[in-house]
């Protein structure tokens, strides 16, 4: 069993906005291409051109419909490690390969000591752990630990690859332990929530829920419903008279 730090100096994590994710998979493939040549190298792929292509991905996107009829909506849901404050994937690790960093809260796997027993993937309720068939070890989101502190990368780009990639800006990175950080403020404003809160693992990553729609169902309830003059619509003469009046008014 592996122990956790008493506390972490920072709580680095992601805030994912479900209101604007369009499901383009830009974060997923950017994650794959960065990490397959980075800390987690390689993220191998088996049967890549065959009947059952499958490989290690640290970030996957799911699309599904929720609700019925007029209330139905399509949601794109990116899924990766949430870097929990009390992650069972770490405490269950028999070798100490899984660990949570005291300085920033990032949960990592040390592949040198990982034995590929997969206990962590059983313990994680979020399905965030991936087994690499080529290496026989577990792999997971590192929050791009090899990008965010990397002085070889321009400062503006020192964010996880998925955050830099995201075309709609649905992903933000920051310190969720600092209530003044931009990510913490967006969680406060938008009602950001924990995934599977009841499990009690205290995920650091947060999801922002879709905003309320402004469609037929909400338009009627709107405080200032769109107003328009009633149409006489049938009389072309009256319409032309209005045009003439308007144009001559402009003349004077």
């Amino acid at each position, binding site marked *: 069993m592996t122990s956790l730090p008493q506390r972490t100096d920072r709580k680095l994590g992601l805030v994912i906005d479900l209101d604007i994710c*369009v*499901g*383009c998979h*830009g974060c997923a*493939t*950017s994650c*794959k*291409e960065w*990490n*397959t*040549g*980075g*800390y*987690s*190298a*390689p993220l191998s*792929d088996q*049967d*890549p*051109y*065959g*009947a059952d*292509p499958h*490989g290690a991905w640290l970030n996957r996107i799911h699309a599904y419909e929720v609700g*019925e*009829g007029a209330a*139905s*909506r*399509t949601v794109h849901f990116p899924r990766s490690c949430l870097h929990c404050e009390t992650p069972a994937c770490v405490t269950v690790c028999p070798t100490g390969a899984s660990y949570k960093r005291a300085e920033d809260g990032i949960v990592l796997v040390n592949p040198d*000591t990982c034995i590929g027993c997969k206990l962590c993937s059983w313990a994680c309720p979020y399905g965030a752990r991936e087994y690499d*068939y080529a290496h026989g070890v577990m792999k997971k989101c590192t929050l791009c630990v*090899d990008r*965010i502190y990397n*002085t*070889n990368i321009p400062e*503006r*780009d020192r964010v996880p*690859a998925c955050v830099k*990639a995201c*075309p*709609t*800006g*649905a992903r933000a990175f920051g310190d969720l332990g600092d209530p003044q950080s931009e990510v913490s403020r967006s969680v406060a404003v938008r009602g950001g929530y924990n995934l599977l809160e009841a499990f009690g693992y205290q995920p650091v990553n947060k999801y922002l829920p*879709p905003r309320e729609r*402004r*469609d*037929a169902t909400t338009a009627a309830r709107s405080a200032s419903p769109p107003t*328009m*003059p009633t*149409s006489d*619509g049938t009389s*072309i003469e009256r*319409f*032309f008279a*209005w*045009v003439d009046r*308007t*144009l*001559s008014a402009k*003349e004077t």
Partner: protein
Amino acid sequence: MPPLDTSRPVSDEVKATTCYMCACRCGILVHLKDGEVRYIEGNPDHPVNKGVICGKGAAGIMQHLSPARLRAPLLRTGERGKGEFKEISWEEALSLATDWLGEVRDRDPKRLAFFTGRDQSQSLTGYWAIQYGTPNYAAHGGFCSVNMAAAGLYTFGGAFWEFGEPDWERTEYFLLFGVAEDHGSNPIKKALGTLKKRGAKIVAVNPVRTGYGAIADEWIGIKPGTDGLFVAALIHELLATRKIDLDYLARYTNAPWLVIDAPGTAEHGLFARDEAGKALVHDLATGQLVGAPAAGLKPALTGRHTLADGRAGQPVFALLAERYLDPHHAPEAAAEATGVPASTIRRIAAELAEAAFTKEIRLAQPWTDWTGETHAEMVGRPVSMHAMRGISAHANGFHTCRLIHILQILLGSIDCPGGFRYKPPYPKPVPPPLKPFGKPGHVKPREPLGGPHLGFPTSPADLLVDDEGKPTRIDKAFSWEAPFAAHGLMHMVITNAALGNPYSIDVLFLYMANMSWNSTMNVPAVLEHLTAKDETGAYKIPKIIYSDAYASEMVAYADLILPDTTYLERYDCISLLDRPISEADGPADAIRHPVVTPDRDVRGFQEVLIDLGHRLKLPAFTSPDGSPKYPGGYADYIVNHERSPGIGPLAGWRGEDGANFGKGKPNPDQLRRYIESGGFHMHHLKPEQRFYKHANKDYLEWATAVGFMPSSEPVIFQLYVEPMQRFRLAAEGRTGESVPEQHRARVARYFDPLPFWYPPEDVAGAGPSRTAYPIHAVTQRPMHMYHSWGTQNAWLRQITNENRLYVHRDLGRRLGLADDDWVWIVGALGRVKAPVRLMTGCHPDTVWTWNAIGKRQGAWALDPDAPETTKGFLLNHLISELMPEQAGGYRYSNSDPVTGQAAWYDLMVRLERCAPGEPHETSPRFEPLGRPTQIDAPRELRFGEAFGGRRS
């Protein structure tokens, strides 16, 4: 803590170039380590994507390393369609191509048909075809989105996507029609995120709720092909509620131009004109008829006005108002056909009006209009719209797109703050002053064609027809069948050539278009055409040359293969002469340059074309002494070619010292400047030039100086398209022009100078009955795939490697279908077997699937049992390329009657549940293709292993 170096070097070198994982052309930074591609990310300084990258772009490494890459030139050894080839040298390949092409050029150049697919080098390929002298050239626009380009260019001198974009920064209301995930993808995604954060409203009008529609504030699940009726009802409502910008209409459009009312005469419906040819308006200030446009006019928009010859003329606006205020355009009248409740149509109209007029923008930016009048502010109507293939790919797409533009114009929202903005070099004159070449007298052995293949006819005299009115182009573009075919009809070339209708050809030369599979209609018939033989045993299409980087399905049907490079191994030029990457705030162009060297015996197609041009002694590719004009290949051409003095493929850093933009002598240092500057160049317009470009003196004078515009005359929006009336008059027999009888009624109906909605099935005439095939069937492209390219990609095919037929739950219930059941999709042409997935977010009588996932066994280096071949299916097999026989036996192409745009989305089907015991495997499946020589596909990928690690 285990040892961990969090600051390892990323790469040895970073090269900035342009992505080609789709048509969006984002800037990318390619990280190289030990000479290999390590990582590709978005270029933060690039105007298109500003640093972001999509699912496709970030998977570019796997495209670059695809085992489907061809290795060397190939010569067919077996029968066509078997996929049996031998590798040959480039010298053999180019000699053979030169022999084939040279013989045809010496005899009759039109017997070469040269069509290019999704390439971005049409200014070169078109130029080459002009030099060769064949009239039979176009790119793929005819089966993509020519309806959008033509409708826009005939209406306001711009168009959606490449020629314009919403003012994302300021718009308050964004109306998105149809599937849009496939063009301008990252800019739109980036913008949607911004709009949502700003609280601007997004409305998606689309039979299917996916992707962008999923995050819209409102999804309108419209019935396919009825968008035009929906828009006409919005127009009706805006007119009825007086929510239109009359001042804008009077200033910038032909709303006041007087239309001659003289039924039965050759001038009925044309503009009354003065002696100088200017259209007349009734000036309220003086009571006189005055030629427009002119400074200081107060034109009437209503009334009947007596012309000098005693005839009457009515302003365009009066005709327009009469049409759309008619009760048959009322929301109630549109509700049933569109499936959109009248209350919704009224509410959307009210919301558009509220955004345009209540949220009016006033930018404190003085500007001067074309008359010299100075305005203290730029007034904005923050409503914007976007549409692409969902509108385009119907047989009523041209008129539907025109209706959308009319809606924008009535709201005063073209090129104003918050509205839809031109991207320079647009606007162009309406329509652009280019006429198509390819009439019988234009085509002569060993001589270039006298001008461009593609253009904008304004009267029947511009058509490419012979004395009998028969088409002179193989695809019948610019004939009476498709008079405004501004992008040609690539989808008809193989069928027409094999049937010898209008004539047969000797060489078919294709680039980068999978015309034997997902890019063609009616795959089974087209495969027969590609392999059909005459009575002597010779192929009816005698020779087929094809260039592609990958072992696509089309490779198997060609005789000679010229293997292309990947996008990281080549030069390319994304030119202002072609399809630039401009932003509304300024023109921009870009390049690709080789960031790695090919490890195979392949060459960029553009290099090959320039080489062939010299071997064929085409004048523009040969120096007077007979040597190659561009010995340095495509890079040499990009820098040194001048289309007209001072104007070449790239606009940046021109002139000997690189100080000029737009016009200037070739600069030998130009490519280096591009490479050092991120692979692109953008010129930023001055603040006073950025809006009202169609009427902005500063902009128009500058655009004329740099060669974008022929003159600084204003661009007047054509609500009423007079050239269409000229075709209609001819078809009605008013003008004495000879119009073949079979086309008269059709041209007279569809060349209405004001846009109208008609059911797409009207065009087919004797089409299959709605009772037999009551369900619409359409496709969308997954956001992480681009055409057929995606499923060869080891990463992308892990996301999607089979497609389902998506069926609304209610329809599924009626048919007793559950998820994973298999059905037959039955259409008039045949049937296709597919697995089902039920959903809520689609129009109840519309089924749909992802486009181009299905693959033919043997192609794309996929294993024979890949899901793409066993479960992946295409709807293409059910879409006829020809419409049913008309009276007299004539068969039109399955296209828009105005532009010839392929009507992919008009497919009607019914579903039949598969019997128990039928195999869960798609049908039809075709004979497996032999694998041309390509790279061996690995069983496992460990990409990045050499680069990675945790320690220094």
